[in-house]
């Protein structure tokens, strides 16, 4: 037992003496969460819009003013002909063109009908769709005003309630994801590098011949990083709550425990990676290339999993991050307790045990 | 052995912060000499050597190697010297032939020349069978000998060897020193550091560093007389203690 503690102490020394790495281990996640919390958002702001107005009458002017006044749009260009649209889209700054047909006001008065084309640059389909929807919403509001003296009969009035995130803040969507990604990458990377480093330098053999049991070596190597990651997780959670005003509707204790579980699973994954890598370079490349993009894209962090093709939905099930994101969102935003996330917790637990078990097995093989 | 001085060092000092690794050392080396640069482990010999080969800037003092100043003309020095580092420094993932070709090319040897020297070298070292094997697969002794030969590829005036025989068996050590004698005989000056005191006996002259300072500098014979010792090992012990 004393040997084991001595081993853990040595691991701690290694880490704390490497100042540069330490700075990165702590500083980076903080910098990143601050950056992302504020910068990553789907909401549109001041999108550049151009106007192609064939009528130039009072109504079109009113509509244009309403669009200008909206914080979502910034009207700063007026074009005269259809062929100009292609030119300004190619330049890349203007994202949409509003095309008012000729005799707009006249048509409205005579036929009660006029057409406005919302031409969007759909190379970014998401923004294009959002712009279309928002312009539409502004026009619907305007129409209501025009029609306020007319009562419309047989109207079904939908009353919509947005729950868990009434203000539709994208921060609620992204912060849990950013937390997860940072914890996962840092944990997996740290352990995979730490172990392959020993392999490359040759000190692994010393460990192998020591009286320490394989499980002890693995746990010993991982222990300091659990400690570091927990501190990281704490800092991230605190920042999320105080700076991004993320609510914690559910139990903080449960949140903490689940985080520890996730950290251990990520560390275990790191160890597994290290058992299949001969050099540090390989371990790092696998952690980063093999882990980073899939985690960002398949965990439900930015893109909804339910929208992906079925095979990808299946694959996303083996990514621990996916389950943790569900758990965090559940606890923080929905306020659920263990009875609602026990399934996901169990899965995470199972994965962790699997990773550790596989690593010990591979490690043992090396001994024989 | 003529008296042309190929290395001239005066008051050379290297400090890392408050710590003085090399403390105002002064000495000279003549052409064709085998000069042994001895000290206990970690006493500054590698640091001193790095300054002489131009990869470390001195804190103060002067040194001339192959006629060029280490401070202002380090790149010229490099054209005229060879170096074999303590940490084996050939590429493990290249073959014997590829390593030779690479370093030959870096030193500007023509392709013809590289081919010639390659053949000679491989034959002399008896590496025909492993010429196309990765260097990483070779036993340590062979690697060291190869490293030494590669450092001589471009016929440098001086060759610097940092603990060249660390970790090899006695027979290989003997073979190594035979190679060193041969090189010196052909006019190459050999500047070698070691902590094997028996190897000091093979050198023409020996300097001994203690705590960054040179405390003794002479032929092995004269040093043994001076310190009333039977062998260089005892000379060193007496110096280190006193």
């Amino acid at each position, binding site marked *: 037992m004393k040997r084991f503690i001595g081993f853990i102490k040595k691991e701690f020394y290694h880490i704390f003496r490497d100042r*540069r*790495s330490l700075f*990165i281990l702590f500083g980076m996640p903080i910098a990143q969460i601050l950056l992302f919390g504020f910068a990553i958002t789907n*909401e549109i702001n001041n999108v550049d819009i151009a106007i192609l107005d064939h009528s130039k009458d009072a109504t079109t002017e009113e509509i244009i003013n309403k669009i200008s006044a909206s914080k979502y749009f910034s009207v700063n260009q007026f074009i005269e002909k259809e062929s100009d649209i292609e030119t300004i889209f190619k330049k890349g700054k203007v994202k949409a063109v509003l095309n008012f047909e000729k005799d707009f006001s006249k048509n409205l008065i005579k036929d009660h009908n006029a057409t406005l084309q919302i031409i969007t640059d759909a190379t970014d389909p998401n923004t294009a769709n959002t712009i279309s929807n928002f312009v539409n919403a502004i026009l619907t509001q305007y129409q209501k005003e025009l029609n306020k003296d007319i009562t419309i009969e047989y109207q079904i009035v939908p009353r919509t309630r947005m729950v868990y995130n009434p203000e539709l803040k994208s921060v609620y969507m992204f912060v849990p994801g950013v937390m997860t990604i940072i914890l996962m990458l840092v944990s997996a990377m740290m352990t995979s590098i730490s172990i392959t480093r020993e392999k490359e330098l040759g000190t692994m053999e010393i460990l192998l011949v020591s009286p320490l049991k394989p499980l002890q070596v693995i746990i010993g190597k991982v222990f300091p990083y659990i400690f570091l990651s927990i501190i990281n997780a704490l800092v991230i959670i605190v920042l999320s709550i105080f700076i991004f005003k993320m609510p914690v509707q559910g139990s903080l204790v449960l949140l903490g425990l689940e985080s520890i579980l996730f950290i251990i699973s990520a560390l275990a994954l790191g160890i597994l990676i290290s058992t299949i890598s001969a050099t540090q370079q*390989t371990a790092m490349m696998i952690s980063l290339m093999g882990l980073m993009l899939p985690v960002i894209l398949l965990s439900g962090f930015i893109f909804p999993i339910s929208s992906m093709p079925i095979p990808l939905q299946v694959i996303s099930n083996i990514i621990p991050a996916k389950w943790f994101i569900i758990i965090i969102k559940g606890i923080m935003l929905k306020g659920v307790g263990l009875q609602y996330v026990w399934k996901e917790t169990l899965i995470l637990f199972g994965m962790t045990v699997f990773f550790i078990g596989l690593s010990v097995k591979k490690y043992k093989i090396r001994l024989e | 052995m003529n008296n042309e001085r190929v290395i001239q060092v005066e008051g050379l000092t290297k400090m890392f912060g408050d710590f003085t690794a090399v403390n105002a050392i002064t000495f000279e080396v003549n052409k064709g000499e085998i000069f042994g640069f001895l000290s206990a482990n970690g006493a500054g010999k590698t640091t001193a050597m790095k300054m002489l080969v131009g990869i470390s800037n001195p804190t103060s003092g002067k040194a001339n190697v192959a006629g060029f100043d280490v401070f202002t003309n380090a790149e010229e020095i490099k054209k005229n010297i060879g170096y074999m580092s303590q940490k084996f420094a050939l590429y493990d*993932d290249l073959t014997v032939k590829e390593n030779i070709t690479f370093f030959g090319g870096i030193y500007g040897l023509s392709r013809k020349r590289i081919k010639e020297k390659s053949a000679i070298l491989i034959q002399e070292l008896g590496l025909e069978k492993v010429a196309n094997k990765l260097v990483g697969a070779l036993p340590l002794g062979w690697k060291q000998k190869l490293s030494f030969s590669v450092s001589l590829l471009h016929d440098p005036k001086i060759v610097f060897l940092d603990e060249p025989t660390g970790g090899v068996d006695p027979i290989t050590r003997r073979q190594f020193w035979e190679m060193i004698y041969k090189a010196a005989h052909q006019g190459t000056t050999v500047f070698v550091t070691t902590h094997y005191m028996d190897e000091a006996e093979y050198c023409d002259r020996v300097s001994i560093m203690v705590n960054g300072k040179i405390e003794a500098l002479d032929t092995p014979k004269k040093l043994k007389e001076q310190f009333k010792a039977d062998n260089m090992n005892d000379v060193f012990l007496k110096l280190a203690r006193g």
Partner: protein
Amino acid sequence: MKIILYIIQKEFKQIFRNKGMLPIIFVLPLLQLIILSNAATFEVKNIKFGYIDSDHTSTSRALIEKFNASTYFEVSTDFPSEQLASAAMLKGEVDVLLEIPNYFERDLQKEKHNNLGITINAIDGAAAGVENVYVTQIVQRFNKNLKVDLFQVSDKQIQPINIETVPLFWYNETLNYKTFMVPGILVLLVTMITLFLSGMNIVREKEIGTLEQINVTPIRKSQFIIGKLFPFWVIGMGILTVGLIIARVIFNVPIVGSLPLMYLYTSIYILVILGIGLFISNFTDTQQQAMFIAWFFTVIFILMSGLFTPIESMPEWAQILTEFNPIKYFVEVMRMVMLKGSGFMDILPQLSKTILYAFIMNGLAIWSYKKTN
């Protein structure tokens, strides 16, 4: 000059001999391109839908039928009570809940209007917005047909003023996300590979000691650096090429603009990335440190590149920061040239900034590389 060739030759040999790394450098990125491009979509599909029908009339059933028939909504569950529905939403089993109140049909006939309750899980605010649009569209269409079929809206009825909005989506009529994401993901992969390889490479030689051996030779540092980085530049361009082929053949992404222009821009872009990698390796002693620093910048650059979320949506200060993000320019150029056919003059701002970046970065990197310490 010949010396550079010797270094290039050695580097290529080492890269291709590293059996463990080869699949990671070549196969993995392209595999990711294929798989992950399918994942990246903001489309909202397969919405988990549930309803509480307290009315049980033909009207309410007809409305529910409309949702069942819609391709956007899936998993339609009938909840007998509000508690069960709320619990389901907490569990994540349902995201959109329709609450049809008592007397839905009767109120519509007698009072001429009624209420419909819609509850949407808004954790993903953007998706919630889209879901709301879908729901509203279905309800409005249903409402319109109801007026015509059931209630025979009389001619004397004054028609409301209607502004018809026609959305037109240029360059991507079907709002196909792949068209948008594939070039972006390709950019990422080219960047990550070249950055990590170049950043790690020199530090690796430092760690194992061969760098010292190189520094002792008379080789000029420019020769060494060019020789070292050239192979990675080639690899980067190679990945770009294969990636473009995959984009065209597998994803049918249109390549509207000039290929030579894309290659020209990429060749300069890769120089920037290599410069960054070299710069990092000059200031770190171990591969571990180099990796961490490279990772730090990569994650930031990726998430703030405008690839996943638009740059225009970011706060002012963040937008200024993106000026220093090389990936941002690459993503813009790729999309502009590939999808819109933008020309040389159109991408001149990005191109010149990238060239400037390349000069500064590589200049710094070469200057900070010291053969003598």
